[in-house]
């Protein structure tokens, strides 16, 4: 794994790697090893190079660029780096073992080792072997504790290394990598950005149910060929119906009360998107939780819709409920729990929700409240037992769509 001795003192960036992991960037051990391979390639000769290389190799989404910048700036701002020994080696060897178990070929290839030889070793022996390899690597670098050194610039300069490689100009030296990182150029791309409808579109794209529909006006080529062959060459053209999206969706939105107010924009976006995207979409509104009635108008008094009527609808209909599911427990459990008098009909809301869950087996509850807070609200815990609940974020939406499209 070691190639020509490199001017820059480098050490295992175990700490840096774990910092990235700690702040929640999905960095894989395999990519970490790839980074080491890059360090051995002779192309990484300064902190600037390292900044660029490790970002290109470790970070796979611009959403994490900002976090990366922050960790980088924090980590490399002239700080002395601890010696990569003892614990850290163990830790990295363990991670390597995990990677090895998942993908033996890949790791062997990256380390330039023979896979079959390693196969014979026990896990303990493997860890020892990895540790040896890692030690060998750190020692060969003359134990530099500090990565930023005055000698940190390669005599190769304008990256003459790679035959046919791209020319790198020398003009960028006036701004250090740490400075660049501190600029936080990628702040706008970070995960904390708003959930806009383009992102939602991506997440909801798979929410489709294509079924044959309409006149038979599409030639099925495979079938035509097969039937023609069967006919001994006499041409037999087979037609099919085209596929149409026939997915029925009911969207029920909690639009009442101050507790939902902070989430109005995101719910609005979801609603806009859904209205533009789904042909067979019914939208209803409720406050806090569902009793006997849902409303078709946002003000919740003009157009009521009794939920027992839903029993007549196609059970294939997907029900998506959006709400924070946070309320006083009696609103959910008591027979006359509703804070609206006209709703007091004798059936507790929890029964109504159960009824909906039975009527539409494919239903989800999207909650704009962060999942980490769910355990602190009793009614959320209750409702989660009735409907699978997902966070109203890109990831949550995706999981919800998977849930809805399950067979």
């Amino acid at each position: 794994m070691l190639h020509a001795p490199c001017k820059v003192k480098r050490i295992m960036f175990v700490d840096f790697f774990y910092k990235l992991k700690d702040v929640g960037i999905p960095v894989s051990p395999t990519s970490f090893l790839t980074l080491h391979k890059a360090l051995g390639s002779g192309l990484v000769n300064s902190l600037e190079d390292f900044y660029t290389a490790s970002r290109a190799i470790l970070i796979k989404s611009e959403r994490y660029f900002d976090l990366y910048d922050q960790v980088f700036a924090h980590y490399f701002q002239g700080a002395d780096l601890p010696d990569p020994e003892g614990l850290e080696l163990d830790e990295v060897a363990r991670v390597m073992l995990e990677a090895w178990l998942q993908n033996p070929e890949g790791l062997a290839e990256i380390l330039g080792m023979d896979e079959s030889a390693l196969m014979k070793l026990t896990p303990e022996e493997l860890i020892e072997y990895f540790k040896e390899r890692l030690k060998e690597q750190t020692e060969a670098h003359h134990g530099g504790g500090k990565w930023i050194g005055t000698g940190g610039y390669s005599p190769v300069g304008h990256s003459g290394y790679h035959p046919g490689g791209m020319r790198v100009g020398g003009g960028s030296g006036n701004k250090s990598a740490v400075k660049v990182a501190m600029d936080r150029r990628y702040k706008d791309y970070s995960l904390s950005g708003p959930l806009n409808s383009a992102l939602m579109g991506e997440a909801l794209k798979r929410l489709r149910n294509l079924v044959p529909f309409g006149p038979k006006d599409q030639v099925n080529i495979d079938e035509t060929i097969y039937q023609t062959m069967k006919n001994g060459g006499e041409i037999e053209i087979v037609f099919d119906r085209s596929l149409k999206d026939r997915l029925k969706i009911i969207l029920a939105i909690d639009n009442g009360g101050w507790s939902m107010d902070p989430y109005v924009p995101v719910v609005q976006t979801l609603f806009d998107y859904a209205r533009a995207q789904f042909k067979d979409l019914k939208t209803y509104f409720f406050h806090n939780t569902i009793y006997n009635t849902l409303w078709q108008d946002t003000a919740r008094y003009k157009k009521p819709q009794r939920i027992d009527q839903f029993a007549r609808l196609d059970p294939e209909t997907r029900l998506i409920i959006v709400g924070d599911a946070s309320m006083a427990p009696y609103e959910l459990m008591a027979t006359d729990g509703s804070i609206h008098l006209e709703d007091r009909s004798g059936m507790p809301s929890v029964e109504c929700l159960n009824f909906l869950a039975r009527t539409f087996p494919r239903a989800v509850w999207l909650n704009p409240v962060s999942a980490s807070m769910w355990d602190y609200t009793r009614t959320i815990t209750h409702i989660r037992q009735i409907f699978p609940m997902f966070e109203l974020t890109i990831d949550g939406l995706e999981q919800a769509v998977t849930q809805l499209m399950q067979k």
Partner: protein
Amino acid sequence: MTENLNQTFAGATRYVLDDELAKIVNISMALEMPLLLKGEPGTGKTMLAHAIAESLKMPLIVLNVKSSMKLVEALYQYDTLTRLNDSRFGDSTRDVSKIEDYIRMGKIGQAFTADVRTVLLIDEIDKADTDFQDDMLDVLDQMEFDIIEIDKTISATFRPVIIITSNAKKDLSDPFLGRCNFHHIAFPEPEMMRKIIRVHFPEIDSDLLENTIAAFYAVRDFGDIEKRPATRELINWIRALQADPDFKPKQLAKGDLPYLGVLFKKSQDLHRAQSMVSRRRAN
């Protein structure tokens, strides 16, 4: 910023390549890994691949990914129709009994069989489904594929430099990302934008240039816009403004922005932008 301007395919269009990207390309080449470029539409990802090919002095092969595309189409095609035609009319030099004569290389196949090292641009990978993406990376990993019809394996003579672009806001699958290096092209800063505009309008007067760029970045900052205007829209907007004999660049500074429809392509966006502009003028 390096000034190694590169002549791209369009001849008149030039692209400014920055150091950071050059480094990333070099590292990807050394590691023999594909480079995934992401960025807003209109940041010139495709142009960049052309510039890379230009600066490496390698031929560029472009695979435009389509949603209905099957992987085999990118590898090779068995031209059954020509073979049928030849067998009926037999007026070609091809040997009908040799299927190999009727195998045509797709774009990936061309890159593998080329007798020089090439740059392979796989454009808009996000259009294809996940299976296509993963299968394609398998081929690119192993640098070989089989032609089933003639039971032959095509291995790459030279490992092409692979550039992949994606518009997707959503991330690609983890195994895919694991095998690529990644770079995100940010939207150009005003400074860069000036350069770009000057390339497109060498004759533009600085009054118009400054005013349009200022106005452009101001409208890009409007909230609630689904599709924010990009470089392409700005260029068209300048064209529209230049075509209007009554237009004075000073109007823009006063907040009078004509032809907003050129910048905002979605009716909802246009609506919001218009109300935003009129509100600003009222203040």
